[in-house]
């Protein structure tokens, strides 16, 4: 496989078409799941929702022959057209539901790596999850640089080559996927370096454990997956000439870009809801949209969201999958999450006590943005990673 620069330009009109499609999907398919008293939507709708997403091309599938899924969220065309279309789709859907956007995104990140396999993909593995992270964070920088280092931080999942297969051992944590996943894209190492494998979720030796009750993004499955002497055939290895680390970095780049896009979408949804509420709610005999403090909360939220959006769109200029781009994506996640969290909490404040109740969906947005901030690389981790990459670049 090759990790290459985007080579095909996508027009603004085409981007706008993707946006329209995503909005229609959100309105027609996602919105009905919020009828009734469900804090995170009626999750029994999930299967149908995802099937629709697959059919209309919003979700990528590991089936490389399917043209329908070429452009979808992180579909195989991403390498050719760049990240803009997926970002727009995720952001548009997240305005209605961050959890559903995260489902599509998690599927897309794993599938994007899956599709880079030079081997024929197993079409039975429709739903995939990325199994990169171990413990509390994604790999720290020194994990990439050598197999042994002073701190002792290494990728702990290992593989061992047998005559016609590989044996995997280790535990991956916080694996996001559609529920239930058919397989995982697993990163592991041996004494020579990293490898990347496609592992079916039903393979003997796999122990899956749900991450348990979580703050938000509950539509998406999150689990810890243990690999105990899991045997996979030789062709399950999808990296090529030792580029597994490059694949891991690519997955991190895509993951953070998508999460930032979801955060921006959630924020835009929160501001829209707050503005609408401000035009309907009276306090002290006047509509609250006329109260100076409410105006101030709304305008500052708006400014924060627009800044976040601008920072996110700067990422689309980074066409080269490089360490510099990875640092940029980390920086974008770091900044965008901060701006969006502030904007969402300010928007919630406009609702007063009602913002804290499940009825208006604002508390859900706050929960979701809070999860996004900590998930797959929290600010503490991102700051260190950026510093490490910058230091490496200076060398």
């Amino acid at each position, binding site marked *: 496989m090759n990790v290459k620069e985007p080579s095909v330009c996508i027009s603004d009109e085409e981007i706008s078409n993707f946006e329209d499609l995503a909005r229609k999907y959100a309105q027609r398919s996602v919105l009905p799941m919020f009828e009734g008293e469900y804090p995170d939507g009626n999750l029994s709708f999930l299967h149908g929702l995802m099937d629709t997403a697959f059919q209309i091309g919003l979700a990528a599938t590991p089936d490389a022959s399917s043209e329908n899924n070429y452009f979808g969220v992180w579909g195989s065309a991403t390498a050719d057209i760049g990240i803009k279309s997926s970002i727009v789709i995720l952001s548009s859907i997240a305005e209605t539901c961050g959890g559903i956007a995260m489902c599509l995104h998690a599927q897309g990140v794993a599938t994007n790596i899956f599709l880079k396999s030079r081997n024929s993909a197993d079409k039975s593995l429709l739903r995939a999850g990325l199994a990169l992270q171990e413990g509390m964070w994604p790999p720290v920088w020194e994990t990439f640089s050598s197999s042994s280092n002073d701190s002792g931080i290494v990728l702990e999942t290992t593989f061992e080559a047998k005559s016609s297969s590989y044996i995997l051992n280790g535990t991956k944590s916080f694996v996001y996927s559609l529920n239930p996943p058919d397989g995982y894209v697993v990163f592991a190492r041996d004494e020579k370096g990293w490898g990347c494998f496609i592992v079916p979720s039903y393979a003997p030796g796999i122990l899956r454990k749900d991450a348990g009750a979580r703050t938000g993004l509950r539509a998406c499955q999150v689990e810890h997956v243990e690999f105990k002497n899991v045997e996979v055939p030789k062709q399950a290895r999808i990296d090529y000439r030792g580029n597994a680390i490059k694949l891991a970095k690519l997955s991190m780049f895509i993951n953070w870009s998508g999460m930032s896009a979801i955060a921006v979408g959630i924020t835009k949804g929160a501001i829209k809801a707050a503005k609408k509420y401000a035009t309907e709610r009276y*306090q*002290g005999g006047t509509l609250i949209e006329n109260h100076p403090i409410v105006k101030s909360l709304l305008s500052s939220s708006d400014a924060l969201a627009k800044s976040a959006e601008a920072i996110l769109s700067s990422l689309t200029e980074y066409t080269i999958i490089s360490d510099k781009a990875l640092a940029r994506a980390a920086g974008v996640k770091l900044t965008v999450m901060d701006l969006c969290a502030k904007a969402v909490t300010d928007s919630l404040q406009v609702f007063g*006590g009602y913002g804290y*109740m499940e009825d208006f969906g604002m508390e859900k947005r706050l929960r979701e943005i*809070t999860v996004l901030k900590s998930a797959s690389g929290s600010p503490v981790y991102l700051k260190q990673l950026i510093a490490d990459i910058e230091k490496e670049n200076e060398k």
Partner: protein
Amino acid sequence: MNLAKDNSLHERIEQLNPRNAVKNMNLIGRMLLDGREMSLWEHDTATLPGSVRRLRRRARSFAQKHIRPLAPYADLHPHDYDPKPLLKAAAKEGFLNTLLPMPFGGVSFLPYFKSIGFQIAIIAEEFATECGGLGLLLMSHSLGVGPFALSGSVHTYLRHLLPLYIKTRYLGKPECMAFCITEPGAGSDVEESEGGAMAKLVTTAKYDPELKGYILNGQKCFISNGAIADKVTVFARIENEGIESWTCFLVEKGMKGFSVGRSERKMGQRASDASELIFEDVFIPKKNVIGKLRSGWANNRNVLNYSRPSVGAMALGHGRGAFERCLEFCKNTNLGRKKLIEYQEVQYELADMAMSLWSARSMIWQSCQELRCYQSVSASAKVIASDTAFKVCNQAMELMGDHGYVHSNGVERAMRDSRLTQIYEGTNQINRLALFEHQQSSDFKL
């Protein structure tokens, strides 16, 4: 060779630690350096008068014994747990009788007459450290009793407050109370003067000369403990009059026409219900008028003066709970060969969180320096503590990475709990205006 070098460096660093370096000073110099190895909590506790020190330890121990084990379940299943054993245990310890000193109340006599609100704030922090929802359950009882205590009416003290406290403390029959001011169309309105003047209030009381009492009609919402309270203090305007006529009435469970509507589905503090209360021609006997007629607005505002430091203390507790659980995580979790807490970036964050909490506690304790809590200082304590708590909870979650948002670690619960403290008892925006209002005739005078 390197190992020897490392050891020598380690020894030198140890020697340079002021704790050890002080040995090179003379006796007086050594005495002037406070090198005691004790937690921040112990340091703060040591500054308190003996009886308050004991109260703080007692409250912490109660919270760890009774609140901690119940907290995760009560948060996940707020409708499936029984709050009564907890209320009973708290009553036995005197934690439901915090508005009077001993022998009727549960707080110490002399410190009470130095600051009425301080000991309540001490208890509130300890309870909320373990669980925001269960902490609210216990503390909002005192909020419900607040109008009794601050009414200034001897009749109310003798008829309602003392019997309630005796029943709770000595007869082992605690009665849960709730405080009702918020209405569907008037939230923060009723927590500041300008909003109050323009508020559209629907709850009214009409005097019935034949029955010699009042007929109450209307609706209240977001009432903490509303669904489980045995008695509620309800504020209503007299019919055909404005909010100036607000009067506090005691409404008891079982009174005809009094019912509980829907319980809200909240983001946090879920172990305590927030319910709608409906009053349909509820007859209130004259004896259940709390304080003077038309004194309700002033009473309400003063209740808020006394309760806001405690709300700040509860927020502080949420932040402290998140911090303590995050600290445990950092001590127990390895990253490579080291524990998380051994990394400088982690130490930096933990220290920052501890400093923030300390500053919030200083503000709360400052707000209780005088006998009476006043508007500016109470509002400031509430705003600073709640903003700090939400910030610290987020820091704790971020430090723990993906583990931060997992319910079983208890940190995300504190984050959800803390967010409400920026909203209730007047949003933090309203509280800023409260400070301005109070200082308008002095600091902010034109």
